């Protein structure tokens, strides 16, 4: 099912709600999650327009099914960007990225989807079409439902429209790189770099086969000089194979791509967790300055790695179908009770993938 307007989407959901049919919202279909189940697939690809690009105001309103890649091309033409760079896929839609709270290396400086969304319109299972927020970058009128729906994995309702804040495209970029095969050296260096006001766009770790490196990207007119200064600092921190890379797009594309795979565990950690994460034996990419890591591992190792990193929340993003039932970490029981009540109120017909989300919500 592929509604062509927000109103059609709401009407469709009302009907499905009355029939009590399970709904599986889908954007580009690039991130299957949860246990495979039956249900009516409601696609947003019929809602794919860039409705407004307010160049002077650095804001845009998109329909949920708009592919991020297309939108970025439009923003780029005006020297702007949505500062969001999840694992690239031409089909990934803004609605799907919001529903899964997907993000990439730019999160270090600009925050994630929750920090960039300024308004949203959602369609609920009783046919309600509701908007929250607005299209200005500063606004505290009413509850912030856009954040509530960010990362809700389509279990509260269907996101149909999204308003976002944009940023200027950096005039040039450059990346400082430094390596070490000692997780403690890498971890201490990451902590040091994160605690200095580098004004970096990204601060990532890349760990593979027992050796790793830190990548610090700058996006400004003085990017090359900033990177050079950072390389000097890396020397003091004991990092080796240091370099400044000016033509750095490929480097960062590789970081993004590695957030996806056959079996990827996302760790919600702290900056200081980097050594422990590297010692799990998994291949790691991550936001070294934020404490977020993506671990590529063998499905057989998932339970062991989770145990080793406990009590950090580990979410299985990509996994073979038999593991997907155990995708989620457990929230605080009190918080889970509130989440269950939120689900009850927003999805009164209980059709949006009931039982598939955190804690069986």
């Amino acid at each position: 099912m592929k509604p062509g307007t927000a109103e059609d989407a709401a009407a469709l959901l009302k009907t499905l709600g009355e029939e009590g049919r399970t709904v599986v919202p889908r954007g580009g279909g690039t991130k299957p999650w949860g246990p495979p189940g039956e249900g009516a697939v409601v696609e947003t690809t019929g809602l794919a327009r860039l409705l407004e690009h307010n160049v002077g105001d650095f804001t845009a309103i998109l329909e949920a099914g708009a592919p991020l890649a297309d939108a970025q091309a439009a923003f780029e033409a005006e020297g702007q960007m949505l500062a969001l760079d999840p694992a690239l896929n031409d089909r990934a839609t803004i609605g799907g990225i919001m529903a899964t709270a997907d993000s990439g290396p730019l999160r270090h400086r600009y925050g994630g989807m929750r920090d960039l969304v300024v308004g949203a319109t959602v369609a609920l299972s009783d046919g309600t079409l509701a908007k929250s927020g607005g299209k200005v970058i500063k606004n505290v009128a009413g509850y912030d439902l856009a954040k509530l729906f960010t990362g809700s994995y389509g279990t509260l309702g269907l996101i149909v429209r999204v308003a976002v804040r944009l940023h200027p495209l950096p005039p040039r970029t450059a990346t400082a790189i430094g390596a070490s095969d000692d997780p403690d050296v890498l971890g201490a260096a990451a902590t040091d770099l994160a605690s200095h006001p580098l004004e970096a766009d990204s601060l990532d770790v890349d760990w593979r086969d027992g050796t790793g490196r830190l990548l610090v990207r700058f996006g400004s007119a003085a990017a090359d000089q900033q990177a050079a200064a950072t390389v000097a600092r890396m020397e003091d921190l004991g990092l080796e194979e240091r370099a400044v890379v000016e033509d750095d797009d490929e480097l960062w594309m590789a970081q993004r791509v590695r957030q996806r795979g056959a079996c990827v565990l996302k760790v919600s950690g702290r900056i200081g967790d980097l050594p422990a994460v590297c010692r799990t034996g998994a291949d790691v990419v991550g936001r070294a300055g934020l404490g977020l890591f993506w671990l590529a591992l063998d499905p057989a190792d998932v339970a062991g790695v989770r145990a080793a990193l406990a009590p950090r929340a580990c979410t299985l993003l990509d996994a073979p179908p038999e593991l997907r039932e155990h995708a989620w970490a457990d929230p605080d029981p009190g918080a889970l009770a509130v989440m269950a009540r939120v689900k009850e109120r927003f999805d009164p017909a209980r059709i949006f993938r009931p039982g598939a989300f955190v804690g069986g919500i």
Partner: protein
Amino acid sequence: MRELIGRLRDIVGDEWCLTAEHDLRTYESDGLLQYAATPGVAVLPGTAEQVQACVRACAEAEVPWVARGSGSGLSGGALPLTEGVLIVTSRMKRILEIDLPNQRVCVEPGVTNISVSSAVAPDFFYPPDPSSQIVCSIGGNVAENSGGAHCFKYGFTTNYVCGLEIVLPDGELVTLGGRELDPPGYDLLGAFVGSEGTLGIATKVWLRVMPAPETVKTLVAFFDSTHAAGEAVSEIVQSGVVPGAIEMMDKVAIEASEQMAHAGYPVGRGAALLVELDGAERECETRFEEVVAVCERCGSDDVRVARDEAERQLFWKTRKAAFPAMGRISPNYFVQDGVIPRTKLPEVLEAIDALAQEYGMIVANVFHAGDGNLHPLVCFDGRNEGEAERAEELSGRILDACLEAGGSITGEHGVGVDKKKHMPKMFSEPDLDAFQRLRCAWDPAGLANPGKVMPTPRLCGEVPGVYRQHPLEAAGLAERF
């Protein structure tokens, strides 16, 4: 109520349970003085457990309550209820944990905004910096999603809260998130921050702090008109510069502030633009020259660069004096907090001018120009019959102009009681209904700060579901087909 007061007294102790009229008068208003109500009783709990016990006692007695931090809010969000309990968090001001390597701080809700930055200085700072930062509390900042002069670059409270311990309106103590980002499940933190005390009360707050910028450079440029200054703002932002702060004052505001701050501002100029760049030394230097050039190109013949920290503080003192200084030129004033898309600045300022003339009133303008957050100050004399009402009406029409431009009724002060009547202009009935769903999920009995945010009182009622899980199903003994 008498029975409840007895219980509250047992919980917090005699000294911290206020019932005498003269004690309660202290709490009758928050920072928005035109609304006042004496609370039935005020309690000042000292611990999370006491907060929880107080809220539970209220829930059992079915008595509504209002949370209050420092009482510096500007929307009447902490306006007490005559028949309710006021829970004041000002005694809970311990900083519980400072973890600089992981860039986290954990504080009690009564801790002031400024003391978070002080606690992590000099290497780190806490970016949200409302003008009231010396007194306002983190608990209040969480409730209001406070911004400040530097939020154009750094974001708002909601971007810095990574964990909360809260007491739900039924008395449950719950932890949302913690020290790490991206906790599992719905983003309840995002929903709670900015909920204006209607979803519960925070008893512990985990915050992200940031490395303090290497360098800060500040200038003030004077223009003949707000129009010209607005052009400069647009050009600065278009050029890709993201200033730490970019603030504007119009002629009336400059005059009033100068009388108070004595910074040597040229009285009579049409607009003053304060621009602050912070960040890496090298980048800042280059960008700062660009900003100076833009200001001159847009018609400023008087650009003053702060030569040292003392002068920088003086620039800021003048900006921050704008609100209190209004008291010198007018016995009373209303502050509005509308937001507009930045490019609409010239036309909205013209509309405000026209309205001021139509009403024969003085409107001073002070605003966070980068993010289009206006603070028109509508001056009036409350002693004159009907003038307050006319000022209120004028304020409402200014908000209408903001909404027509595609903006919002409030950028950082919150809806509270003050702006709830304007909510239907911005949100449709289904939008408001969606807000109510959120509220009901947290506070089905409607006891937490009722009468705020929503334009009309609403009850929650039963969950309107067509399907509820049968107990047998929950136990795994039956399935639904």
